[in-house]
């Protein structure tokens, strides 16, 4: 873990290296003796290859500077040398935990530009699969977050439930994580009855499981002591850094793209946006747990009102040329607002594809939010931000 160059220089005499200095953390000047701790890029708590350069004074953090780029794949350049149909598989590899919503954004942007209206059944199935994907993403977050806090067992219970969702989605799309299920104008194939019945069973079986999670973890005194009033993030800080999703909803602002800019079939369902005013890690935790309940509600309503009919719009040109100009489409992914901007100059390959990902903005406020915090609390806060590193680096 020691930074390379430190090893080569001979360690200076001990008393001069650790003089007993006042531990005034970050307030006035930098304290007398700080040391740099490298958290990552290979570290169990960073869920991927994120490196955080922490200047520490004892256990307190003076400055935590995230360093990104370890898993950068230049997704936007790939966008510029692939046709719209060929770029679809890339969209589910930006944030592999909410692949459906990311493909939904890209497909939506192309449909908005080419003025193609997918049939209502396709819109409903897109909502059902996106919400299932949101639940599976929240379950992965819940398990990994508890793992960060030291509780090992909840991860296994969460993955047991998530397995049921993955089997359902695998039965209709063929893949477990990187589904390539949506097409411009609709879906690649229709859902079968086994999927619909399986989804109803899953929804019915998930509610008692959520009660068990609440009793086992949410009400646990150790967890509450670990999360309440830890890592307060104010609504103003969220606005300054453009943080969205459960982070801003945990600070009291109910911003959700499904309500702010209604898209697809969401206006036809009634669901609330859970918000908590405290802005600490516990608020962000409760927002996500409540969102699972809301997603279950949406899925149930969508299953009840699922219209019949085709799943593919009728006249979708084989080679798609979008009219010149730039078009945006934003969706509410599990981690926040994901927006695709396509600038086209009326060729079948886009001129520029811009991917606005939520985790980049959510992480950018970590440096300011973690000043003066303990190491263990800073990791708990980073866990509550629910980061997926390929989503930051693209």
């Amino acid at each position: 873990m020691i930074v390379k160059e430190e090893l080569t220089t001979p360690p200076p005499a001990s008393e001069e290296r650790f003089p007993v200095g006042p531990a005034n953390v970050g307030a006035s000047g930098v304290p007398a003796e700080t040391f740099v701790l490298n958290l990552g890029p290979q570290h169990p708590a960073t869920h991927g290859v994120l490196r955080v350069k922490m200047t520490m004074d004892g256990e307190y953090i003076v400055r935590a500077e995230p360093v990104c780029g370890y898993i950068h794949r230049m997704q936007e350049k790939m966008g510029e040398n692939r046709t719209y149909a060929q770029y679809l598989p890339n969209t589910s590899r930006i944030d592999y935990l909410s692949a459906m919503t990311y493909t939904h954004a890209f497909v939506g942007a192309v449909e908005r530009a080419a003025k193609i209206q997918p049939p209502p059944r396709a819109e409903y199935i897109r909502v059902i699969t996106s919400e299932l994907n949101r639940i599976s993403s929240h379950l992965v977050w819940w398990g990994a977050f508890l793992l960060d806090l030291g509780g090992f067992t909840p991860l296994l219970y969460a993955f047991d439930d998530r397995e049921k969702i993955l089997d359902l989605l695998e039965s209709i799309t063929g893949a477990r994580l990187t589904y390539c299920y949506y097409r411009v104008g609709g879906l690649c194939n229709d859902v079968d009855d086994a999927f619909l019945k399986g989804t109803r069973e899953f929804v019915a079986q998930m509610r008692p499981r959520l009660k068990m999670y609440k009793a086992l973890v949410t009400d646990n005194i150790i967890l509450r002591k670990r999360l309440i009033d830890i890592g307060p993030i104010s609504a103003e800080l969220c606005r300054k850094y453009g943080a969205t999703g459960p982070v801003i909803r945990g600070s009291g602002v109910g911003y959700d793209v499904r309500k702010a800019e209604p898209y697809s079939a969401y206006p036809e369902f009634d669901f609330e946006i859970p918000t908590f005013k405290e802005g600490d890690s516990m608020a962000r935790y409760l927002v996500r747990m409540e969102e699972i309940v809301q997603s279950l509600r949406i899925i149930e309503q969508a299953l009840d009102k699922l219209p019949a009919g085709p799943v593919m719009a009728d006249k979708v040109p084989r080679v798609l040329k979008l009219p010149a100009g730039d078009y945006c489409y934003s969706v509410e992914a599990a981690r926040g607002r994901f927006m695709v901007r396509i600038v086209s100059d009326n060729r079948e390959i886009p001129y520029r594809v811009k991917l606005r990902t939520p985790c980049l903005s959510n992480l950018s406020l970590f440096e300011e939010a973690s000043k003066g915090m303990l190491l263990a609390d800073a990791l708990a806060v980073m866990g509550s931000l629910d980061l997926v590193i390929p989503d930051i680096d693209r």
Partner: protein
Amino acid sequence: MIKAIKEITFGFWSLVTGMRITIGQFFKPVVTVQYPHETLKIPARFRGHIELVRDPGTGKAICYACKLCERACPSDCITVDGVKLDGAKKKSVTSYHLDFTKCSLCGSCVEACRDGAIRYSREYNLASTNKDDFVIDLFRRLEEEAKSESHPAPAPSSTPAAAVTSPSTPADSPAK
């Protein structure tokens, strides 16, 4: 003071309920599948790497090397070439190389193919020690299957979309 005592009692009670739940789970049956000994049932639309489809009538591959799939693939994994046999109005495929190291299983090729000459296989046991095991020549593999099937049973038994449940790793089918 009262608040502290209440917090301690409720806290202790939450610890006890937590332990009651885990001991409850302790005696429940195991949910995991013991992989090497038991395997899961593969769903119908499972997407393994692509494989050529045999024409039930003639027993030959349906594919006539029209290269639509080659153009549709975003990561150029497919290289197909065929030759026009005399007397036949269409070309017939002679070699079909799939570079599975670059394939992202997006399915553009299967959708681009208008005659359903390729479909997803059911293979998922694809561990191998060297990389060039994954540059698979699907046509040669189709030939082997035809040879091995026609060898024991003289009549060319047409195998409909056989669900290949026994996972066969590419290592045993010669890749070159």
